[in-house]
């Protein structure tokens, strides 16, 4: 456990020691704000909630989260520091989970910095702040799922571009699987696949959270999804650490 905390601290400090953190946070906040107020019709809807914001978060994370995860292991391989990290007396899962939690905490910081939106809706109307809280929780779950997939992909390559592109593709697949375009297409042609697509869809799961519902099914889905990919990450590092 101590090793995990050590890795977590180093990683989280690492984001803020380079421009990565500031570029990520600024772009995320600008895009989130712009999309919410323009495409999301924040004012014209006349409703005091953050529904438009929550709708866009997965699409923003879709390409921002892979930008975080692409370097997690690929960079360690390129610099050779993986040799240093994995010859310290820590279990491999400690390094994997420490890195993941640091990236997740970083996403939580970025999400928390969208607090002016919460203030805005509270000034303009009387929103249900419980629903807003569960919506944020859902966004955090989406970030965790994307991070787990992206980190596992990063563990398989030393090329950051490959890690990025594959992670975007995987996240896109998870996001778009529940969209009407995909599910309608599938239900007309291969109805069996339509149900599967809906059940692995991140957007479908997020929908519950943004309506204020925390269902055990969704929580179990996200938890097991993350656990599975962290496990895969540990195996990938163990098998291919020296490649």
């Amino acid at each position: 456990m101590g090793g995990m905390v050590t890795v977590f601290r180093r990683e989280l400090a690492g984001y803020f020691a380079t421009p990565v953190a500031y570029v990520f946070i600024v772009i995320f906040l600008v895009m989130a704000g712009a999309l919410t107020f323009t495409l999301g019709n924040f004012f014209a809807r006349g409703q005091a909630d953050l529904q438009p914001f929550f709708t866009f978060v997965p699409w923003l994370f879709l390409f921002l989260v892979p930008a975080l995860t692409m370097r997690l292991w690929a960079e360690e391989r390129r610099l050779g520091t993986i040799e240093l990290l994995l010859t310290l007396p820590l279990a491999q899962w400690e390094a994997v989970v420490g890195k993941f939690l640091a990236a997740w905490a970083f996403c939580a910081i970025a999400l928390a910095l969208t607090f002016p939106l919460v203030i805005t809706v509270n000034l303009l109307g009387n929103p249900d702040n419980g629903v807003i809280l569960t919506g944020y929780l859902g966004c955090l779950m989406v970030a965790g799922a994307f991070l787990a997939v992206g980190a596992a992909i990063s563990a398989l390559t030393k090329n950051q571009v490959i890690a990025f592109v594959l992670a975007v593709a995987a996240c896109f697949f998870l996001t778009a699987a529940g969209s009407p375009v995909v599910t309608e297409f599938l239900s007309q042609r291969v109805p069996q696949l339509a149900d599967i697509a809906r059940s692995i869809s991140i957007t479908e799961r997020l929908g519950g959270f943004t309506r204020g519902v925390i269902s055990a099914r969704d929580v179990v889905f996200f938890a097991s999804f993350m656990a599975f990919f962290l496990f895969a990450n540990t195996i990938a590092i163990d098998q291919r650490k020296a490649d």
Partner: protein
Amino acid sequence: MTALIEIERLTKRFGAFTAVDDVTFSVAKGEVLGFLGPNGAGKSTTMRMLAGFMTPTSGTARICGEDVVDRPVPAKRHLGFLPEGAPTYPEMTVTGFLQFCGRARGFHGSALGDRVAHAMSLTQLEGVRLQPVETLSKGFKRRVGLAAALLHDPAVLVLDEPTDGLDPNQKHEVRNLIRAMAPNKAIVISTHILEEVAAVCTRAVVIARGRVVADATPAELAAKGPTMDAVFRALTLPEVEAA
């Protein structure tokens, strides 16, 4: 004398290529083993397996009696390892990097501070303690890696080309440091600089094409031919000698 490093029939294959072929040797406390060989002979691969970074295809390696594959974390606690090229996290300061390594080894609070200060004084890093590693010269980077390997005063030191990239004065200091630590440790240093073996090592193992071709004291090795260079060539390039 008990052997702190025991390597038995260690073999590593990459596909059809055998990088390390049936290597056996052990190193007792007080010994400084020079691991010699031309580039690509399998020196780094052997050291990586000993450090628990690469998994051997067959054979075993033990550090202080702990098998590096079966009990990796206890084995790594006794080990100070300087990987080839001395990789470090570029954005971290010297102090930050050494503190990270110390924390990963379970030091906290004032004990951590003392360890870091001691390691920096051994390797003369005090002058650059707050500089990011990426701004340092090659010689300093190498010494940062060395400081990280020495930090916890390990019983076993495995140093892959510790003096590579150092100027003659720095080489002299590192050799003095190794000689000073030698009585209480088992040390393996890999090198292709022959003078280094005569300068610091009590024993030399010569490896060529993955196989051990000589295991003797530097004096015995030197007695085999007119010069160390000639002996090295004769051992590692038998076909040239025969022609």
